[in-house]
């Protein structure tokens, strides 16, 4: 029997694992008796950390706390911009970050300061985060280089905030295309510098941007694909295994695009009933050597453990022989169960996944025959 590290590395290196790995993000399974029980059954932990930290030496940031709201004012020689976050919001996000209620970019006047901030960004490498984490995890986990978690267009989008800035972000591209394009060019220049360091990261497994689904393939092709097509082959030539965080629930619309991107791993893939693309369809579109890393849809848990087990078994049997498949949690997992009833349902559901993996996830998985 393989340990988790051997199992996940078999999949990532296109060898045959002994069974489909169960590999949630570490944050989605806080330490505890239940988590230990699952790890004893082979579940591994995926750690996402950047080996790069950034600074903007000529920009000062002023923080004001107003109740549970933190306001950050960035003072640049080109003017000030501000963002606001709601803090102490509990377990809404997997990383317990504040909720962005006001993005940096709110209008035409904000482009110059933001461009200055982007150009002022300096990158520094700290590989101890990698070596310390890998040593800690041992056979129980996988390190993900998280230094390039967003694509350039994704960076541009989040300049406007999250949900709060969505409308502004849409309008700005139409109302002020030149300014938006200049900002985007500045982001590309910054990300090029970042990627040069990422290529030298000690980590083999690299998270490279996401497919959010809030914008369509045409925009991704226009803005991000050239960058991706430049860097992915280069990173792969350096021995890196690259993944895209494809958490869009409308992934069917991106099916062809993903094939063009050249990633080794399509991660956060959320099958129906939450997403709209089945594993079978994805496999047909992306080929037998694309690793599909499933974000298990927790909504299934509400149907009970038997239904969850059956769902998982059908999922596994839909992608024989199962040697390019990983099951994980990339959005919520047990971490998202913040009341006793949800916790109970989630725990039963997750055990049902482990049962299904033990029973049906052994390599080679046989295709389901009616």
């Amino acid at each position, binding site marked *: 029997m393989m340990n988790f590290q051997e199992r996940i590395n078999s999949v990532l290196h296109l060898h045959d694992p002994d069974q489909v790995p169960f590999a949630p993000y570490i944050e989605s399974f806080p330490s505890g008796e239940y988590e230990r029980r699952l790890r004893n059954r082979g579940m591994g932990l995926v750690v996402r950390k950047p080996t790069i930290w950034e600074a903007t030496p000529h920009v000062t940031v002023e*923080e004001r706390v107003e109740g549970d709201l933190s306001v950050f004012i960035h003072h640049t020689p080109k003017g000030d911009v501000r963002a606001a976050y709601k803090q102490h919001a509990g377990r809404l996000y997997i990383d317990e970050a504040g909720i962005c209620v006001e993005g940096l970019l709110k209008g035409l006047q904000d482009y110059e300061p933001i461009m200055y901030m982007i150009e002022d960004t300096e990158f520094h490498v700290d590989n101890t985060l990698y070596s310390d984490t890998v040593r800690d995890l041992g056979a129980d986990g996988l390190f993900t280089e998280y230094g390039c978690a967003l694509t350039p267009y994704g960076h541009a989008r989040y300049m406007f905030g999250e949900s709060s800035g969505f409308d502004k972000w849409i309008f700005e591209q139409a109302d002020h295309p030149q300014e938006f394009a200049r900002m985007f060019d500045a982001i590309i220049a910054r990300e090029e510098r970042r990627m040069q360091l990422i290529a030298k990261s000690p980590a083999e497994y690299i998270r490279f941007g996401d497919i959010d689904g809030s914008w369509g393939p045409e925009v991704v092709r226009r803005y991000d694909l050239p960058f991706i097509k430049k860097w992915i082959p280069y990173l792969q030539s350096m021995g890196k295994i690259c993944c895209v965080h494809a958490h869009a629930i409308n992934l069917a619309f991106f099916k062809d695009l993903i094939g063009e991107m050249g990633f080794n791993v399509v991660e956060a893939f959320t099958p129906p009933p939450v997403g709209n693309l089945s594993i079978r369809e994805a496999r047909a579109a992306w080929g037998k050597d694309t690793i599909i890393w499933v974000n298990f849809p927790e909504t299934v848990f509400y149907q009970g453990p038997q239904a969850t087990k059956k769902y998982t078994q059908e999922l596994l049997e839909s992608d024989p022989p199962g040697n390019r498949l990983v099951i994980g949690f990339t959005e919520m997992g047990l971490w998202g169960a913040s009341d006793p009833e949800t916790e109970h349902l989630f725990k039963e559901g997750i055990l049902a996944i482990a049962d299904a993996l033990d029973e049906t996830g052994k390599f080679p998985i046989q295709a389901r025959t009616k």
Partner: protein
Amino acid sequence: MDFRTRINAVLHLETPDQIPFAPYDNLVPRGDFERTLRNRGMGLCLRRPTIWEETPHVSIETKAEGDIETRLYHTPKGKLTLRNKLHTGRIKDDDMDLDIEGMIKGIDDYAAAIYWLDDTQLHLGEGAFFDANRDIGSDGIVRDTGLQAPYGVTRYLYGGVSGLPRWSQDQYDHPAEFEQLVQAVVRREEKRLQLIADSPAEYLSLGDLDGTWGPAKIRKYDLPLFNKWVPILKSKGKICSIHAHAVNLSHFKDLVPEFGCQVVEAFTPPPVGDLSLAEARAAWGRDTIIWINFPETIFWSGPEATRQYVKELIQSDPPGDKLVIGFTEMGTWGAVTEESSRIFRDGSMAIMDAIEEYSV
């Protein structure tokens, strides 16, 4: 017993099945080794404060210069400057920044600092406790943070190490002003303790015994707060601990019982600390729970020597029902090379072996 039952037996003055092995959760990072130890009964002590703070009338301006971060606290009474070194790796147990310049440089900063302290509003956010408690289940215990001892706070306002000389001098050169500063911290901590009394956590930490300053200062500045609040907290069913990580603890031997805490935690026995377990027990009585910070330096003598050391430690405190062994400063988290990692892992395993063999 599972770990939770075992540690609760100790904390409630009942009899456990063996001595709990209970490091801080972050000091044994998650991985195959941690899982091995947990499968053998090691539990985790999770420190999760339920209180969050804000200073609504003080804005903080941050500037980064390489790995140095400068924080300017703008108060109506003036500006305070704090400088931290960032990205320092695993120097401190909590991954915190390393302060290289404290907020207070001298008494000219006192007015602003007192404003900042008095402006602090505290809020009880119980979610972090409930979530952590539910997550950890029988594999650990969740501790709340209940007090920052006022005199020690003034020291850290001057900077952890950088401000030590100035802090020492100012309290003699300007005693009246210094007294005002301490009293501002006392006012803030009184507010904290009022909230903590209603914390959902049973187990609380109440300040530390650092050893950088002597018992006289603690009796003068901190003890009144302990003597007022520890009985109140106990009457509400709380179990109170003091983080006694001073390596010169023998000088505080008589002071420790005056705090009234049920648990003396981070107790570091010789050869790192200067107070043996037997001496501490004799001084503090049979019902004081002594929670050991295992001195990692022992690991360098090899696993057999570590095992022997633990055996002698356990046998020096019979029957062992008021004893906990943990890591409160470094643990395997502090092993940052392959060699030290191997040595620390061998040593930690030897602790587990010895606990199983000699404490049952």
